[in-house]
């Protein structure tokens, strides 16, 4: 028997509020640990890395622009570094900790098999400029993924290299511009619905186009009449998100696409929400000419605290010849060839519009996405989008009694449920409810987006949440909605239980401190 238990000691039961009164000397509170900056704990003489052999100083002679002292960077030994970053990591919320309902961002579980295979040396430890015969493993992953993306979307080709969704948008618009220029057709305008992601107009402007907004209808979809009325010889194309940012499927996309094509333009589809329809609908069947796919959203490569992303763009037969270099083709013997500047012309790809970046794109994301896709297969991907949409509708119907759902009556939502702050007490807003979720142990949902709904709250549970997990979240949301309606002042100052309280963003922006100066 255990000594401690034999002692008969039992913990004393404290009273409510006692814990808050305790001041600690370290600033830590139990497992909630504070951590200083590396510049405060490290120094030039600490190092966690060692090297083989001695340095022959004579071989350093003759180096121009040689620095006189080491860069002023603090070092840490391995145990110090492991502790520093582990302690910092614990101040983050993450999918691994709980439901992450950020609408339009698609925070779903990241399978660890994908992490494992991405580190296989045949993909991770090869140089992008090795002879092609020595990198067949990596090239075959690129090519297999490309074939999956083409088939799943019903398109003719794919540009793999864009490094993120916005980069993919740019790539798609540059394909459109190249195709128009190839037929001597200089058009100036891209039409963008007002509910679009902010990247859409930014990208169109960056590609040299003038942006014109198209209004939405009362049911949260693109105004087809307004859009078709604006078509003409100056319109290069439209950028439409489908499913859209209100979580609704754009029913009339095919009608819109036919009208745009008849007017000589192209249809760009923002594929940020492809995860809602993957395996069930092929955008190619709806007349889409170009669509980027955020591999981290639909195919679950990790978000990594803000990247890296990967944004391949699938292309229709009309745009595919203009895809940027490099890309893969497969030979009759099964080997994969990389088409780049060296061989594009003789391989019949002289129309490629250029290059989006150095090397061949985001290999580390391709191997993860391919492992995810192969795991699910065509049947599993269909279940993925089905469960994602079911979970979102379950949240929508479970909460529409306590929260205003602007398009709730318009029928089922897709992968995300949209609510507004209508009915909250005077002075209470979406932000307060969002910050209250933090105290309940959740990451907030997307707030104030889409702009077309006042005080928008966009909830995307994803398919990797269990029914029990959803029920607990719904319970928390119900209580928070009631508190916002009742004007609970403790909600106004939430969060109370996170590593930090609300931060002063005005101070940060007025007097920017972007580097540590001691």
């Amino acid at each position, binding site marked *: 028997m255990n000594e401690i238990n034999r002692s008969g000691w039992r913990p004393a039961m404290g009273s409510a509020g006692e814990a808050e009164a305790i001041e600690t000397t370290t600033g830590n509170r139990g497992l909630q640990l504070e951590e200083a900056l590396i510049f405060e704990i490290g120094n030039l003489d600490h190092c966690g890395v060692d090297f083989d052999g001695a340095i022959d100083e004579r071989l350093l002679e003759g180096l121009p622009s040689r620095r006189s002292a080491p860069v002023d960077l603090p070092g840490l030994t391995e145990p110090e570094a492991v502790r520093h970053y582990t302690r910092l990591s614990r101040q983050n919320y993450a999918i691994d900790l709980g439901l992450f309902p950020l609408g339009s961002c698609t925070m779903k579980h990241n399978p660890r098999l994908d992490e494992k295979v991405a580190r296989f040396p045949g993909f991770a430890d090869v140089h992008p400029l090795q002879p092609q015969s020595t990198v067949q493993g990596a090239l075959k992953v690129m090519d297999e993924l490309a074939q999956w993306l083409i088939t799943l979307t019903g398109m003719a080709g794919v540009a793999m290299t864009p490094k993120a969704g916005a980069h993919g948008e740019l790539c798609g618009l540059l394909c459109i511009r190249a195709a128009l220029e190839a037929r001597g057709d200089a058009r100036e305008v891209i039409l963008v619905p007002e509910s679009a992601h902010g990247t859409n107009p930014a990208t169109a402007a960056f590609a040299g186009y003038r942006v014109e907004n198209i209004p939405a209808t009362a049911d949260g979809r693109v105004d087809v009449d307004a859009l078709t009325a604006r078509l003409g010889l100056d319109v290069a194309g439209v950028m439409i998100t489908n499913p859209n940012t209100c979580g609704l499927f754009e029913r009339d996309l095919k009608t819109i696409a036919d009208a745009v094509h008849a007017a000589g333009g192209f249809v760009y589809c923002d594929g940020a929400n492809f995860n809602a329809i993957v395996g069930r609908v092929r955008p190619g069947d709806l007349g889409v000419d170009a669509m980027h796919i955020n591999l981290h959203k639909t195919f679950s490569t990790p978000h990594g605290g803000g990247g890296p992303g990967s944004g391949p763009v699938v292309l229709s037969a009309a745009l595919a010849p203009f895809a940027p270099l490099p890309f893969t083709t497969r030979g009759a013997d099964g080997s994969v060839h990389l088409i780049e500047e060296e061989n594009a012309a003789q391989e019949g790809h002289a129309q490629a519009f250029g290059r989006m970046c150095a090397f061949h794109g985001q290999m580390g994301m391709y191997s993860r996405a391919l492992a995810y896709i192969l795991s699910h297969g065509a049947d599993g991907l269909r279940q993925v989008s089905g469960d994602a949409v079911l979970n979102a509708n379950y949240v929508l119907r479970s909460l529409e009694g306590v929260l205003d759902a602007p398009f709730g009556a318009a029928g089922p939502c897709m992968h995300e449920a949209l609510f507004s702050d209508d009915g909250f007490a005077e002075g209470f807003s979406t932000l307060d409810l969002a910050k209250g979720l933090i105290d309940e142990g959740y990451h907030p949902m997307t707030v104030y987006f889409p702009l077309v709904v006042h005080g928008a709250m966009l909830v995307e549970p994803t398919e990797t949440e269990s029914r029990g997990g959803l029920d607990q979240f719904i319970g928390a949301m119900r209580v928070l909605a009631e508190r916002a309606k009742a004007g609970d002042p403790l909600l106004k100052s939430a969060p109370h239980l996170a590593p930090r309280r609300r931060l002063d963003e005005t101070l940060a*922006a*007025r007097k920017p401190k972007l580097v540590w100066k001691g």
Partner: protein
Amino acid sequence: MPRYFTKDHEWIEVEGDAATVGITDYAQSQLGDITFVELPQAGASVGKGDSCSVVDSVKAASDVYAPVSGSVTEGNAVLEDQPELVNTAAEAEGWLWRMTLADAGELADLMDEDAYKAYVAEL
């Protein structure tokens, strides 16, 4: 000195062919905490309605348009260190730039203070 207002919430105070321009107190209250003001260069010639300045708050960046045509004579350099003056004194020390007028006749298109007050009350 006469003061005029625009529907985009700029004010302009005129003295002879010189004028001072800022955003209204109503505008600053809508924008929230101002964090940065991008000022026009002295000597820049501007057309009526051109974007001359950008006022940043934490969550938004708003263009400020020239109420009338003319030439910028100076930007309010104090705002470089104290953008918060636009919050605390939008229609006084928080002015944005001074300019000379090209055509005083353009002032006729603007509102006087009473008309602006009525306009804001409708918003």
